């Protein structure tokens, strides 16, 4: 099972997890990213490159499935305007081996952070806006999975 979705709407974490549990694998790992409030943030606007996003996320998922003995995975990434508390991203993996489920989940979220063509713009209560800067740490982390410097 490989489920990849890039969508504006919210998703049902329970349904995603239930589908992964039903694969009978023994272990299901997940990560959910949520818009963090504070500092006067009223919304995050996620822009993406539609022609590229789905293909890119698909490729990353295939890589995870080649690398770990997974029974299934589910990756969902939202775009558009999201308010604090809203879910942005979900990664779920199922495997007979808990380490495979947990590691592949970490791998996928690291890659989404550094390799998926999404950009975040912050909107503040005072009308100010600003594009979120990429963190060097994220690029380093994704490269780490390849054993590169």
């Amino acid at each position, binding site marked *: 099972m490989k489920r990849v979705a890039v969508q504006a709407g919210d998703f049902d974490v329970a349904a995603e997890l239930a589908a992964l549990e039903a694969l009978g694998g023994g272990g299901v790992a997940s990560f959910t*990213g949520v818009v963090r409030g504070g500092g006067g943030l009223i919304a995050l606007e*996620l*822009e*993406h*490159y539609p*022609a*590229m996003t789905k*293909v*890119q996320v698909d490729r990353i998922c295939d890589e995870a499935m080649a690398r770990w003995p997974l029974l299934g995975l589910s990756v969902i*990434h939202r775009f558009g305007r999201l308010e604090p508390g809203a879910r*942005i*991203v979900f990664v779920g993996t199922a495997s007979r081996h808990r380490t495979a489920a947990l590691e592949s989940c970490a791998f996928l*979220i*690291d890659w*989404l*952070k*550094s*390799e*998926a*063509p*999404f*950009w*975040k*713009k912050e909107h503040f209560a005072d009308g100010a806006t600003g*594009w*979120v*800067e*990429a963190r060097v740490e*994220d*690029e380093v982390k994704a490269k780490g999975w390849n054993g590169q410097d």
Partner: protein
Amino acid sequence: MLTIVYFAWVRERIGLDEEQVARPELGATVADLVAGLAARGGGYAEALGDATRLRAALDQRFVGLDTVIGDARELALFPPVTGG
């Protein structure tokens, strides 16, 4: 012609999502094309003046700015990604 698509603050500074440009000469790299666009001044200079802040994709694949454009049909220019 070559289609160029822009994202995030590159798009905002240039004021366009997408445009068509004359296909660059044989052997031209992404960096060569970016330098030519930046030379237009205004928003282009603001968006593309500092190539170290840019990332690129050719036909929806990430590439380094030193990559030859060749027969690619779509070039995308954008800042480092911040998804996830």
